[in-house]
């Protein structure tokens, strides 16, 4: 079928392009290109006119080829040298995905320095910690907003000597008459002059780098305590990138949209490392608000997104379809059902009856193709999702449309790949087989350990944490509990340290329960409690869009999130969801005893600004346990209603207190 045919051709083209990949091609630099600076020189030579990076600005897409990128990086590196950048110096990078910031990463590496990308929505004191910890002397920031953050904490970071900004908007006054704040273009101009005086310096500076050198610091937004600086070498990223390219037959003609935070290991691998290795072009969206439009314009072939984005996309699709005309809606749901039945099988090349193939073909022409086209996913050949468990029906929805979405399990400490679902063996609730070159062991307490070329060097200036995570033979403790199922796929059930025991000794995996609850569109977030307790209870956060839309159609008036969350009908709706989860749990012997007995709906959304979640929306259990202790006890004592006052930070930083009386509901099949 169509699926096989494209697979075959992609192998042929991959072989052609992979000439770039295998180490032993007699490339001009003699030894294989094992660092990004060397890869840059190779690409600038062998893919000179091939697009390397693209950005939408002023309404159209500006493309730069690999040779142009080389000259941009060269000038920037020269400029940094002129400002006194030495080998081993750290360069903090903060801002949205922009070509200038990706070039800063390479420029620092060309000079033997280490780039430190940071989250653009991090608040000032988070940046201050990273600046002090990494002892960075240079900072490249995107615009006035980021520069102001750094200036705000300037007196705490005496080490910072030079601040470079890209978008000049409102910054003229800052840089005139100050030798510490410079415009990107001015630095590049200095670079040109510097390199004229030192010809050949840039090329041999690039040559000096070796595979084992430290390539980048990535600060993990750890769920507990201060973020740790993961040091990753060139080998970590280049080898992992190349194994991913070979496994998935990526070519230089892939199209990738770089819209995830640059400080996140996923973006660093897919939008930077693999782009340098395979030579494909990375596109930066115009602004945060236009990502959806830009996704549709670019039509990426290689797409990566955390489950939350796939989830939001599905919810918006369903909500928008609710308002469609009856005929269109019925047609939509009919063909969706067809896809749900046979879509994944067709994608995996399994046998399907002729009648279903015709129906699916009809569906493809009328619903699936236009839907993928409107979402911008119609050219996607490979889509990864990772970071947390994805809802089974969300996962199968995309596969049934013919989008080759696959789960992978990875960590910053592993330069992403630990396990990947190979083509043809894709299941909704597993994370796949060990990636090429990765060995995996399961300890007796269920914790997963792995060893691979991608394993990080160390946690910067934190030898003790490094020893705890990585032992002498190179085995890394993931901190996640899981087991291999009969098909040889790894299944992650929870964080190792969160896996608790119920009083009756049974396993209690809170994350596993919470993910099952979150797969319902109405539930945005859930937190389960049961460690050394006799039964399980849960907090629930409703999804304002989905429930709000449902309330509108049921014409239930509500003025605020809090009022909607406390509504009687909403409680019974969540109750039905929990009933269904409990039904699935009883089916699996290992988890039968952790069915949920009591729950309450929180009066406010759990938010990263209140410290209740990490930047990538992972629940911070210890913080919640302390903050809502009153509520947790009320849940277990079975009080009818419980009053609570919680401190909240508003968008513009002001603090306030919200108080509410939350109803505690007993799960009963009759409700």
């Amino acid at each position, binding site marked *: 079928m169509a699926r096989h045919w494209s697979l075959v051709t992609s192998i042929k083209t991959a072989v052609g392009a992979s000439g770039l990949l295998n180490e032993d091609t007699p490339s001009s630099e003699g030894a294989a290109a094992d660092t990004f600076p060397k890869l840059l020189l190779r690409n600038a030579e062998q893919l000179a006119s091939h697009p390397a990076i693209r950005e939408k600005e*002023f*309404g159209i897409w500006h493309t730069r080829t690999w040779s142009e990128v080389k000259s941009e990086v060269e000038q920037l590196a020269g400029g940094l040298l002129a400002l006194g950048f030495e080998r081993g110096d750290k360069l903090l990078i903060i801002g949205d995905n922009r070509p200038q910031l990706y070039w800063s990463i390479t420029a620092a590496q060309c000079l033997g320095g280490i780039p430190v990308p940071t989250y653009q929505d991090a608040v000032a004191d988070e940046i201050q910690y990273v600046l002090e910890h990494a002892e960075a002397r240079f900072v490249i920031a995107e615009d006035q907003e980021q520069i102001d953050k750094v200036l705000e904490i300037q007196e705490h970071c005496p080490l910072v000597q030079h601040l470079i900004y890209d978008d000049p908007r*409102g910054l*003229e006054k800052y840089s*005139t008459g100050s030798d510490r704040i410079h415009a990107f273009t001015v630095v590049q101009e200095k670079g040109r002059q510097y390199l004229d005086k030192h010809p050949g310096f840039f090329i041999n500076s690039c040559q000096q780098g070796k595979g084992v050198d430290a390539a980048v610091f990535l600060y993990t937004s750890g769920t507990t305590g201060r973020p740790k600086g993961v040091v990753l070498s060139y080998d970590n990223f280049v080898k992992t990138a190349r194994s991913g390219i070979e496994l998935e037959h990526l070519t230089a003609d892939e199209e990738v949209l770089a819209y995830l935070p640059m400080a996140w290991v996923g973006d660093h691998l897919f939008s930077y490392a693999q782009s340098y290795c395979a030579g494909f072009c990375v596109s930066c969206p115009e*602004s945060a*608000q236009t990502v959806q439009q830009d996704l549709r314009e670019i039509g990426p072939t290689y797409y990566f997104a955390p489950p939350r984005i796939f989830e939001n996309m599905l919810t918006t699709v369903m909500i928008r379809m609710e308002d469609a005309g009856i005929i269109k809606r019925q047609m939509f749901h009919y063909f969706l059902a067809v896809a749900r039945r046979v879509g994944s099988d067709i994608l995996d090349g399994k046998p399907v009856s002729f009648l279903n193939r015709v129906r699916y073909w009809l569906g493809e022409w009328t619903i699936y193709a236009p839907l993928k086209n409107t979402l911008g996913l119609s050219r996607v050949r490979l889509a990864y999702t990772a970071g947390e468990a994805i809802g089974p029906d969300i996962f199968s929805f995309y596969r049934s449309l013919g989008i080759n979405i696959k789960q992978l399990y990875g960590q910053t400490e592993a330069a992403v790949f630990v396990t990947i679902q190979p083509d043809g063996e894709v299941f909704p609730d597993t994370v796949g087989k060990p990636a090429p070159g990765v060995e995996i062991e399961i300890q007796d307490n269920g914790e997963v350990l792995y060893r691979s070329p991608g394993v990080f060097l160390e946690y910067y200036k934190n030898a003790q944490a490094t020893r705890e995570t990585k032992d002498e033979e190179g085995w890394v403790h993931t901190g996640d509990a899981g087991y291999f199922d009969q098909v040889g796929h790894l299944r992650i059930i929870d964080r190792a340290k969160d896996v608790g025991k119920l009083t009756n000794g049974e396993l209690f995996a809170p994350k596993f329960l919470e993910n099952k609850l979150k797969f319902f569109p109405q539930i945005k977030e859930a937190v389960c409690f049961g460690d050394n307790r006799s039964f399980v209870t849960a907090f629930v956060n409703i999804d304002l869009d989905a429930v709000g839309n449902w309330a509108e159609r049921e014409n239930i008036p509500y003025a605020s999130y809090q009022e909607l969350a406390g509504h009687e009908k909403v409680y019974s709706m969540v109750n039905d969801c929990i009933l269904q989860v409990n039904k699935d749990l009883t089916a699996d012997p290992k988890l039968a005893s952790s069915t949920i007995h009591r729950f309450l709906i929180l009066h406010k959304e759990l938010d990263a600004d209140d410290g209740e979640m990490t930047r990538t929306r992972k629940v911070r259990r210890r913080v919640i346990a302390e903050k809502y202790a009153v509520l947790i006890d009320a849940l277990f004592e079975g009080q009818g209603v419980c009053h609570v006052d919680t401190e909240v930070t508003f968008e513009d930083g002001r603090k306030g207190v919200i108080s509410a009386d939350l109803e505690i509901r007993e799960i009963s099949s009759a409700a």
Partner: protein
Amino acid sequence: MTTRTTPCAGSEAAETEVILDLDDISLSFGGVQALESISFDIRRHEIRAIIGPNGAGKSSMLNVINGFYHPQKGTITYEGVVVKAMKPYHAATRGIARTFQNIALFKGMSTLDNIMTGRVNHMHAGLLAQALYIGKNRREEIRNREFVETIIDFLEIQAIRNTPVGRLPYGLQKRVELGRALAAEPKLLLLDEPMAGMNLEEKQDMSRFMLDINEQYGTTIALIEHDMAVVMELSSRIVVLDYGRKLADGKPDEIRHNKDVIEAYLGVAN
């Protein structure tokens, strides 16, 4: 907008040069006396606020400046030249642009077209070139499109580039209108209550835009605004009108403590 030489705002000499001087202006509609012998000036690169209770004649004053109303008495000198009965489009070609109290956007066009219309006086392709859309006209359309895109980028309205303006929320329509006024590369920008009906966040954005316009492009701004906090913080000098007469004129803190002004606003404390 890199295309324009941006005179640095700091130097004192440029500060004092007067761009517009209104001397003894009187305006009446039939019997109604809208303005009565008002004189004040606006210096280059300053943010000149015109405040006063409703019906004080603020909007009429703006309409006099941009030639929509012709005063019965008094002289207007713009950039050193005394201006006789100036037609509105003369004012536009000489670098005076304005926004309106209740938005005057072209409903039948998208955001981009509305702002491109502001470029009308900067495009000179002949009719034939436009008919065949070749050579001069194509180059000119692209050059001006690039300029307009810098404005769209400046006002952060990339996401609504192609939406018809009729469908935009109030705050965004105000921004598009400001974009259209900027497209004419004005020397003097008249803003008629740019922040009316805006929430706190939108007001912060609009003030940021106004400051950037004034600093980055050196555009002199004449501002009518009721929000005293904004006026006091942004403006270099303020003129206060009341019932068509000039009540006071000076720096923000002078005005803040001026007895007549307080009376006019809060009523006489007898």
